[in-house]
């Protein structure tokens, strides 16, 4: 028997993705639709001896082909032979959802209407007469409660048992389609015809609502009551800050960091010692032991220790997203973001950038206008990502031991200020003619579906594991080779290829106070991945290992002090180096993401050059200004 081809459509926030996850579980393939970076999710499931393929189409409010998502939906529905298209409808918001349903019926797609979130509709006093709706539309109607397993089984039963060829649009829908056709053929202008078509659709929706839906006067909904507190004009911002503080506490203090410390100990102590002893015991040559331990394990291990933090942070954010609170954050911060030249939705990429610039750049997709998206992409790498943190911790502990926390906090502030300044300048110059709008749907508050949260967390976090095993692994080997060899063979580190390249790079920093080949090499390697700045410093100045932990950073700093790092930097030049590290060119992965997201080598190159230039100028001002002030 052939595979049953099913597509899911629906408005955003109707629980469509939750249903898709429930139906397909882990059996999903995620890719992009051709030409655009909109998710294409395809899942497979077997039920009643029937193979079913399910495509989760992007959520849209219509299929007018105005946005990339709308084009994808309509082109997919028109160009693929589908057995069934399930339109997932939010029962508590039926009137708005029916607009898409009517459009799909006009296109003659084999439509199954899923009245989802019936429980929420009932709680709001909304009752939909399923039989009447089925009669009015002429298409089968089912009801679900989003993430219940009963609903999942029921849907799969419906998929395999419903013969769509038995269903035909009702007389009401047929006459609507005839009406639409006559409007389009009436000779009206395109705009006037479109207006008339929309009016006709709403007239049909009004009739359906009048005949199939009854509403009790239920007063304020649960979400409206919660919003009275969480989105309250006075309390909203303090509550938002408290929640975010909680997320960072969970990530960096309570759960994420302890796990990271355990992993750090496991990799950088236990495994490193075990590997060294095993290799030496097996009689492996000294250079190979050094490559594996000093190069690969130290390099890859430094990145792997961040993985628990990343997963915990993503879990918290996915959980918050599932509750519906994320949409409120954009709403709450809109007035502040407007002053920065962005809109409220821009807050999320900026927040994400404190974890990693890559998801932050990708997160800018959620922004509505091209201007907001481009500005957000170009400024988020200024912020202090997790990979920059060890640089700050190391230098602050070494050169400002009394005020280390203040200096690191200062670096965060410098990053935020530069992002705001750059957003203002870019918004007023390069993108000044492009308007931006802020349209946001506030979904109702819900208890998140843990399965969806876990799938999303894994989906977002697994990239870091892959990155550690690929680019960081390759970079670690390269760094080790470059720091141990020159073109004549094995050599001392100060005669190595890394030293030569670092020497060239250092010529740019003659007026910045850190024109040493070691600093140049560290900054150069940081373009591969920011973590490698500290790893390179560790190799070049002889620290045994590198850690994100403040106490261990102090120990590493003291080791380095004894081996000459203090002679390479003064407190002022160290501060200038930190400022430069904070602001300069994003890592290659972030640059690659900028290329992908902007679909432009020009913007990727612009990002690399303008950030380097700003970092160079600001760092120069810091150093020369500091000297003038007598530091």
């Amino acid at each position, binding site marked *: 028997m052939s595979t049953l081809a099913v597509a899911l459509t629906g408005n*955003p926030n109707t629980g469509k993705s939750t249903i898709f996850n429930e139906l397909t579980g882990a059996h999903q393939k*995620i890719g*992009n639709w051709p030409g655009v970076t909109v998710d294409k999710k395809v899942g497979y499931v077997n039920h009643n001896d029937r193979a079913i393929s399910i495509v989760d189409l992007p959520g849209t409010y219509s299929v007018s082909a105005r946005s990339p998502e709308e084009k994808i939906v309509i082109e997919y529905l028109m160009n693929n032979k589908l057995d069934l298209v399930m339109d997932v409808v939010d029962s508590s918001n039926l009137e708005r959802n029916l607009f898409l349903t009517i459009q799909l019926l006009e296109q003659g797609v084999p439509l199954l209407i899923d009245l989802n979130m019936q429980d929420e509709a009932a709680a709001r006093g909304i009752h939909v007469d399923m039989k009447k709706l089925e009669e009015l539309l002429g298409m089968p109607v089912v009801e679900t409660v989003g993430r219940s397993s009963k609903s999942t089984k029921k849907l799969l039963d419906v998929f395999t048992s419903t013969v769509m060829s038995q269903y035909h649009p009702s007389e009401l829908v047929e006459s609507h389609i005839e009406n639409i056709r006559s409007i389009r053929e009436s000779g009206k202008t395109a705009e006037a015809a479109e207006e008339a078509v929309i009016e006709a659709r709403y007239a049909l929706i009004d009739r359906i609502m009048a005949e199939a839906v009854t509403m009790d006067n239920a007063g304020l909904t649960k979400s409206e009551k919660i919003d009275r507190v969480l989105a309250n004009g006075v309390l909203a911002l303090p509550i938002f800050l408290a929640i975010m503080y909680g997320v960072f506490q969970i990530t960096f203090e309570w759960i994420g960091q302890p796990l990271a410390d355990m992993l750090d100990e496991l990799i950088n102590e236990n495994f490193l010692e075990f590997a060294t002893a095993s290799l030496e015991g097996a009689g492996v040559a000294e250079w190979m032991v050094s490559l594996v331990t000093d190069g690969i394990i130290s390099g890859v291990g430094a990145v792997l220790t961040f993985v628990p933090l990343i997963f915990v942070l993503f879990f918290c954010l996915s959980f918050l997203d599932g509750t519906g609170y994320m949409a409120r954050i954009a709403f709450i911060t809109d007035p502040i973001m407007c002053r920065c030249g962005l809109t409220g939705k821009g807050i999320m990429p900026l927040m994400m950038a404190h974890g990693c610039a890559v998801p932050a750049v990708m997160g800018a997709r959620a922004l509505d206008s091209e201007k907001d998206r481009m500005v957000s992409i170009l400024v988020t790498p200024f912020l202090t990502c997790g990979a920059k943190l060890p640089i700050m911790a190391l230098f602050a502990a070494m050169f400002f031991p009394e005020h280390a926390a203040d200096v690191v906090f200062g670096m965060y502030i410098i990053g935020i200020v530069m992002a705001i300044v750059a957003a203002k300048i870019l918004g007023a110059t390069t993108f000044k003619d492009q308007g931006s709008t802020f349209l946001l749907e506030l979904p109702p508050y819900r208890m998140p579906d843990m399965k969806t949260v876990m799938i999303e967390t894994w989906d977002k976090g697994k990239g870091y594991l892959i990155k550690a095993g690929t680019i960081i692994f390759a970079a670690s080997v390269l760094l080790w080779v470059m720091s141990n060899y020159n073109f004549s063979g094995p050599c001392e580190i100060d005669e190595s290829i890394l030293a030569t390249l670092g020497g060239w790079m250092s010529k740019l920093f003659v007026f910045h106070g850190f024109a040493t080949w070691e600093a140049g090499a560290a900054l150069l390697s940081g373009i591969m991945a920011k973590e490698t700045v500290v790893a390179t410093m560790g190799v070049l100045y002889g620290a045994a290992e590198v850690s994100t932990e403040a106490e261990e950073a102090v120990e590493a700093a003291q080791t380095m002090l004894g081996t000459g790092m203090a002679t390479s930097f003064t407190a002022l030049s160290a501060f200038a180096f930190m400022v430069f590290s904070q602001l300069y060119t994003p890592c290659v992965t972030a640059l690659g993401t900028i290329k992908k997201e902007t679909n432009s080598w020009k913007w990727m190159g612009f990002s690399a050059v303008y950030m380097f230039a700003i970092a160079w100028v600001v760092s120069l001002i810091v150093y020369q200004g500091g000297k003038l002030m007598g530091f």
Partner: protein
Amino acid sequence: MATFVCAAVVAIALFFAVRHIYRNFVKGESDCCGTSGCSCGDSCGGCSGCHTK
């Protein structure tokens, strides 16, 4: 012999790592954040309304 085996393991791992990086580069993909698209730190819920242009 032990050095040779160790070098071979590293070389094979390096080959696969570089091949992965090269394929990502050619396809214009990134490992960070997988390929989950707008769900990476989005506020749009359910991967809706996310696009690049």
